[in-house]
């Protein structure tokens, strides 16, 4: 079994607490942004929650109440989750908490730069970061499997930053819902 590191969890709880404050600050924005993985010019975009109470599940890839594959992007050599994804990840965690039979596989990936086995390690840390956020927000460990493909499974094949940005990612894939 994989052991979650206590320090990591603590750090994430702190991060999540501060993020809740952050997202409520932006909740007066008129419309939500439905496209996960969108990036603003500075690498960060703020996402509003809309006026309704709770989450508008459509924002987080839910179609007719069913979850869909989510992709979260990362900075180079980083496994820190961009705070713009926190609400999305929370929504997936809530779904998992409400549906004990649901299962997800988190696949961690990197861009092609750097060393291959180091990138496998980095991809796993990215997937772990997402897993930890799911666990903190109510998902159960047995619902989640993690795999890292490092740089072996690029979705964009170019050798430029546009392709690299798309390839530095963790994919959350529902294997049962």
């Amino acid at each position, binding site marked *: 079994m994989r052991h979650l*590191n206590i*320090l*990591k969890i603590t750090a994430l709880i702190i991060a999540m607490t501060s993020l809740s404050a952050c997202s409520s600050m932006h909740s007066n924005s008129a419309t939500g942004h439905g496209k996960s993985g969108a990036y603003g010019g500075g690498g960060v975009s703020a996402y509003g929650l809309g006026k309704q109470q709770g989450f508008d599940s459509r924002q987080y890839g839910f179609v007719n109440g069913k979850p869909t594959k989510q992709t979260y992007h990362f900075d180079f050599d980083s496994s820190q989750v961009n705070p713009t994804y926190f609400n999305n990840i929370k929504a997936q965690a809530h779904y998992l908490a409400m549906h004990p039979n649901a299962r997800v596989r988190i696949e961690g990936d990197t861009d092609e730069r750097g*060393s*291959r*086995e*180091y990138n496998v390690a980095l991809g796993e840390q990215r997937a772990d970061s997402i897993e930890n956020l799911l666990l903190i927000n109510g998902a159960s460990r047995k619902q989640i499997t993690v795999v890292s493909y490092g740089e072996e*499974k690029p979705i964009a094949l170019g050798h430029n930053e546009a392709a690299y940005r798309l390839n530095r990612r963790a994919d959350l894939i529902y294997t049962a819902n």
Partner: protein
Amino acid sequence: MQINTIVKFKKIIMLALSICLFFMSVPAYAALQLELTQGVAGAIPLAIVPFTKQSAALPTDVSKVIRDDLANSGRFNVLPAAELRQFPHNLLAINYNYWRKLNVNDVLIGTVKKITSNRYAISFALIDVYRNQTNDDNKNQVLVARKFEVDAAGMRHLAHHISDVVFEQLTGQRGVFNTRIAYIVVQRYLNKPVKYSLEVADADGYNPRPILVSPQPIMSPAWSPDGKSMAYVSFEHKHAQIYIADLATGKRTLVANYPGINGAPAWSPDGNKLAIVLSKSGNPNIYLKNLQTGKLRQLTHGLAINTEPSWSPDGSSIIFTSNRGGGPQIYRFNLADDQVTRLTFAGNYNARASYAPDGKSIVMLHRQGGLFNIAIQDLASGVIKTLTTDGLDESPSMAPNGDLILYASQYGGRGVLGVVSTDGRVKIRLPAREGNVQEPAWSPYLS
């Protein structure tokens, strides 16, 4: 022809052939086309006289293989065959003044004769054209001369063996023409699954043979020290596992299948242990797996990434990549006292290091100005030298003679293999006929 100095060398050839047996059943072709892109300025001038006129009728053009080997090594300036006007096949036919006027130091002559339907007698002599002639039979000028008998399937490997003999005679260094390389080929087709294959080919790219073909990634091929087995990582079950394949039979053994990462296998010099990377503790750490007992020993601890282990030639320590200090750097784990020492300090990205055969330097992936290149670091002085300039280079693997480094690069938008000499003077490219080639691993000496 009669040459008294000819040495019978059948035994070594038979050994080489028995090792190569399973590579022999398919026609020779190259999946990788070797191109010399930069040779040594002071390359040794050499003439190679075609061994026979009817080379097309023979299974292998032996002298052409030797010519390609030596010319592509970058260490020789081989006179173009078209410039030759004399074609001696024995010592007495050599006109020394002719060869001296062509400004070559040495001439390689030889013969190929068919004995029976599948049996050939091959001989060669390497001649120094500047040595003094002491008597009429020209024996004094012969640096080395040998005679062999092989079947059709063995001719190409014999040619590489002759290249090795000539290379060592003239450079003082053991040749690697009879070694092999392993690498991963990735082929992406429109609307079809990606095809990953782990292949083994001769050092010049000929005789490629698949070891494993999979719709899922294959990574990190590692030759056993005896060259008979290969460890690799396969994602065939949608997660990483480490296998060891017996290269003669193709039989494979699953050696690591833990939760999380199973990666970066590295054989101990005695072949008894495999250093591997597992993340079952929560983060990637380096472990030793005893291949006899199956026992596992955890080497690194902590919260950082620890990966890409590589053994020192004496087996006393393991170098590895870790981001414990922030970015990835190379560290050494001393197996006697568990002490960890940081080895690299230049730049903020150093990874995938391995030792030179003499243990005095390491080669690695090194980032400088945003570019990823292959670099070599002298361990005593700490001085680092960047050897390549392509910017997307990775996965360096040193030849067993310590002279050349095979690495993965990008050329024309595709993954190709490159070779650079450890002094940076020779550069060779091995582009693939199709697909992307990555993660090369140079074999040990095979005979």
